[in-house]
């Protein structure tokens, strides 16, 4: 069983929802990025979404773009991103890692070579934002060979027909984009998200994660009641931006504490939801 499937099974058994923090590999530098990553599972991260930095992240808002550029300025590239995964795996063989990014760096690396090296490094899934089902075969086929999940995005613009196309070759989990917009910009409408998650659940047995508009512990709790997993990205990388003048150890510690509060809130809300289900039952 893949690490992603094992983790969702485990969470389901304990009635909890997953907290998925996003950071960019190499933001603000390789060493600090590893230090943050290594402390995330202890702070409550169930899965880690690791950004593969790209110069022109068109589906991301200013916070994630700035994070990507900080990483690139510190010398990040695909080889170093995969090295980071490998180093993390030395001490943690359970926490799933999902690599998120754009196709250009993967294309330059070579799609088949990338899936092989990513799997060897210890990655578990791939989210490639600008590779819709119409274009993802080039990555999906070698990813399958390497046992990597292709995590597809569903959005508020996905109607029933489109959802079929998205779900057809999806694996790992479904990432529901809670807003029509780039990461970290608008606020989600929880009624709308709840209805969308229900539609996705009716069409697939894959777990559903929600992200893009989740900024605060309260947001995370709200989404944890609705979905199987909550992704927070912009709020975390904005915190890195705010702490850039602090010593690196302090920056890392502070980011980890923010993640702990988001994780706690996700986990408490989900166990609360499980509780109330029991009461209803």
């Amino acid at each position: 069983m893949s690490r992603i499937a094992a983790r969702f099974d485990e969470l389901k058994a304990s009635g909890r929802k997953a907290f998925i923090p996003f950071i960019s590999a190499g933001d603000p530098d390789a060493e600090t990025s590893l230090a943050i990553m290594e402390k995330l599972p202890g702070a409550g991260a169930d899965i880690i979404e690791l950004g593969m930095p790209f110069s022109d992240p068109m589906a991301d808002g200013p916070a994630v773009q700035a994070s990507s550029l900080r990483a690139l300025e510190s010398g990040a590239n695909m080889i170093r991103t995969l090295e980071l995964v490998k180093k993390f795996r030395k001490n943690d063989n359970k926490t799933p890692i999902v690599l998120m990014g754009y196709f250009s760096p993967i294309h330059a690396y070579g799609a088949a070579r990338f899936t092989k090296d990513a799997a060897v490094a210890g990655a578990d899934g791939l989210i490639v934002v600008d590779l819709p089902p119409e274009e993802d075969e080039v990555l999906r086929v070698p990813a399958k060979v390497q046992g990597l999940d292709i995590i597809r995005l569903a959005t508020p613009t996905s109607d029933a027909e489109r959802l079929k196309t998205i779900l057809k070759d999806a694996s790992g989990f479904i990432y529901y984009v809670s807003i029509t917009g780039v990461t970290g910009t608008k606020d989600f409408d929880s009624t709308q998200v709840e209805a969308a998650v229900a539609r996705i659940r009716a069409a697939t047995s894959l777990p559903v994660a929600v992200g893009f508009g989740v900024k605060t512990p309260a947001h995370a709790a709200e989404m944890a009641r609705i979905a199987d997993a909550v992704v927070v990205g912009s709020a975390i990388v904005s915190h890195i931006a705010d702490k850039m003048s602090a010593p690196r150890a302090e920056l890392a510690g502070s980011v980890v504490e923010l993640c702990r509060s988001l994780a706690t809130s996700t986990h408490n809300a989900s166990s609360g939801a499980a509780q109330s289900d029991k009461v209803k039952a």
Partner: protein
Amino acid sequence: MSSHPNSLRTGPDARGHFGAYGGQFVAETLMPLVLSLEAAYEAAKKDPSFQAELDGLLKHYVGRESPLYFAERLTEHFGGAKIYLKREDLNHTGAHKINNCLGQILLARRMGKCRIIAETGAGQHGVATATVCARFGLPCIIYMGEVDIERQKPNVFRMKLLGAEVRPVSSGSRTLKDAMNEAIRDWVANVEDTFYIIGSAAGMHPYPMMVRDFQTVIGNETRSQMQAREGRLPDMVVACVGGGSNAIGMFHPFLDDPSVEIHGVEAAGDGVNTPRHAATLTKGTPGVLHGSRSYLLQDGDGQIIEAHSISAGLDYPGVGPEHSWLKDSGRVKYFSVTDKEALDAFVMLSKLEGIIPALESAHAVAHVARIAPQMKKDQLIAACLSGRGDKDIFSAAALLGEKL
């Protein structure tokens, strides 16, 4: 379209690919919209009233057809081939960009979209978009890099005067590619009501095809005008290439005529062997940006490298997918011209013909200056003068050491 058995004019395929190039590399939020745009465009193409309305606007609003002008003094100066200039600079708004903007705004209206966004580099596409929005009474938001805003002030004022909101883009290199990133971000956030008018023959399918189709009026007219003037086709067709919209419009109607040699001219900036240029086809490698696979200026890690050109309209690290395919097939040859050569051509055309070309178009003229002397006197060159240079007088004056 041509019925030629091995026609080069049949692309793209149903999935928007020109050989290995093109495609729809966009975020999932946009996919349903991009697919509906494709369907709406296919329907519009089949509707004679759509083309009739566009033709009427091109004639009465833009002033088409634009002249194919015999540049007598330029021809004498070089002493070689006869040089004809396709005068897109005489169009309303001063460049070829309006041809495409009118087509796209008619499509936006058909689709019921009530808010228009666009990116602009030199400001020519922004002005053309703001113009058609004023003409049809639709709100217009133009994304423009801060660097370009500084070097294209007259066009920024024009856009504002036409009622558009110009939003400065401060991310990345603060030029055309970043303006395009921001326009795509706006589109993702406003999919319901917004139509994105892309000005270049680049981006995700169906844009490269659609922009080309709306710009082929340039090549179609050139073809029949040259037939009327000289009784035959030109021996050589030349146009400048940034994203490549005027070039693909000029080239496409000649692709199946083997007697016509076709040259695209990229911006070499300080020189193609320096880090500061925008010669994507000459020095780039295939990659994925802004929705399509195409030649790009990128490093070994797939990170986009900032382009440089004296001309804001050519200052783009990508190029249309059809040009990438035409390069690989060898049908079109791509060359490059430095900032200095372009500036020299800018001055030369002004002095010899009384025509101040856009710095973009001056690249095509500079290439003509190289090849015309090597050609025979009975040979014919048709070069696309894609825009006029009024917008460039401030930056040109600064480069020429004149204080205004």
